[in-house]
Each structure stands twice: as structure tokens, then as C-alpha cells.
């Protein structure tokens, strides 16, 4: 099954384009696509509980939230600080998905 992978690098709560990007992910997940949102750099703040309601909606629609471990550590965030359904992963996880022919990816 094709995975749609959306990589968000800017904090979506502080960039209108970033929030719209998460909305795009939400629409794709709600339409039944296997959709993952990879949060890296300042975007990891979007995985804090209550930071961005769209992320909760995205999870509710069946989307998967992946958080870059290094970016989270750089900001003193532990997995316990993040949404329970967000999964902390290494950069190798992103590389593996990128190289999977079944994955379509967009970086924002």
C-alpha cells in the first residue's frame, strides 16, 4: 500500500503554511490514504499535547505521527512529553521510508 509521507520542519503552530500542511495530511488520512506526518526540527513542538489540534484530528483520522528523536532531544523533549500516539524515531526511519518505492514524500 502506498504511504504518503509528509515531512514538516517548521513549527506549524507558528507558520500558517505549516498548519495548512498538517491540514493537508489530515485530509489525506481522512480520505483513507495511509498517511504519516514526520516532525523534524522545530516541528516537533507540534507533537506536544494541546499544541496543535489539527495533529490530534490527524491521529483521530488514522494518521501516524513520527517525531525525530534528535530534534526532540535538542529541545529537551522526552517521549513522555509528547502525544501518547506519537512515535519517536531516528533519522534512519525516515531514510528507510524515503527509499521505499511505495512511499511518496513531500518536505515542507
Amino acid at each position, binding site marked *: 500500500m502506498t504511504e504518503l509521507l509528509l*515531512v514538516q*520542519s*517548521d513549527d506549524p503552530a507558528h*507558520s500558517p*503554511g*505549516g498548519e495548512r500542511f498538517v491540514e493537508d495530511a489530515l485530509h489525506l488520512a481522512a480520505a483513507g490514504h495511509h498517511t504519516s506526518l514526520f516532525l*523534524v*526540527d*522545530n516541528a516537533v513542538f507540534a507533537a506536544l499535547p494541546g499544541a496543535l489540534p489539527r495533529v490530534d484530528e490527524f491521529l483521530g483520522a488514522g494518521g501516524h505521527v513520527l517525531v525525530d528523536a*534528535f*530534534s526532540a532531544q*535538542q529541545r529537551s523533549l522526552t517521549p513522555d512529553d509528547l502525544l501518547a500516539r506519537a512515535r519517536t524515531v*531516528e*533519522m*534512519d526511519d*525516515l*531514510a*528507510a521510508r*524515503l*527509499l521505499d518505492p511505495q512511499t511518496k*514524500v*513531500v*518536505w*515542507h
Partner: protein
Amino acid sequence: MAPVPRTDVLLAVFGGPHRTDLVSTTFRLAHALLDRGATLQVWTCGDATGLTRRSLGDSKPRNVVDWTRDHPSTAAVARGLIADHPGRLHWYVCRFCSDERGMGDQIPEVRRRPPFTFHEHTQAAGKALTLGVC
């Protein structure tokens, strides 16, 4: 002019490199892809062309709170990555952007390319990502 080699991934680094974590994220992702055996192109545009300018030398200026540690420059990191993955990492620098910024003198491991050839690089990549433009 040599043809653009076919690669699994193209990372187009367009953003201001030191405004965010763009530099470290680009290098980390490049590392991870190469560790998985992938072939990779990096194309830098705008201020990111300065990452590999020769004047950076091998080391960053000494850190006053960590005086004895050597911190490699971005040019040295790029050079090391290219050397460690012969034939698998190709690093290109936009000629126009680097000339415009007075950064045309680049380390010899990278190639400068005219901007109108960028489409050749996207066509030669299995997947293309543009980093740093939000």
C-alpha cells in the same frame, strides 16, 4: 559536460542554512541515506551554496568554552561524506547563486552547475526533496 548520474534521492537545499536546523538535518539525512546504501545528490542554492566554499577551511573558529575540541566546518563535513561514499554522493552548487554571493571558490569535491540544469538533476533522481522552503 558530464551527464547527471542517476541517484535514488536528490536533496535540494534551498533555505537559509543557519536560520534553522537545516544544515544538521541535511547532513543527518544524507548520512542515514548513505548508511542504507543509497545513491544521493545534494544541490545547494542561495545562501546554502556557502556550505562548501573553500574559505571555510577545515575547522570552525575555536569555541571559547571548549577550547581544545576541533569542530569541522560544513565544507569539511561535506568533503568527508563525499570521500567516504565514492560514487554514491554527488554534491552540486548553483553557479549563479554562489557567484552572486561571492562564493564561487568552492572545495574541489563539489561541482558548480548553471541553474538551468536543475531540471536534469530532478529527472535523474528517484525522489526529490526541497529542504528549507516553508
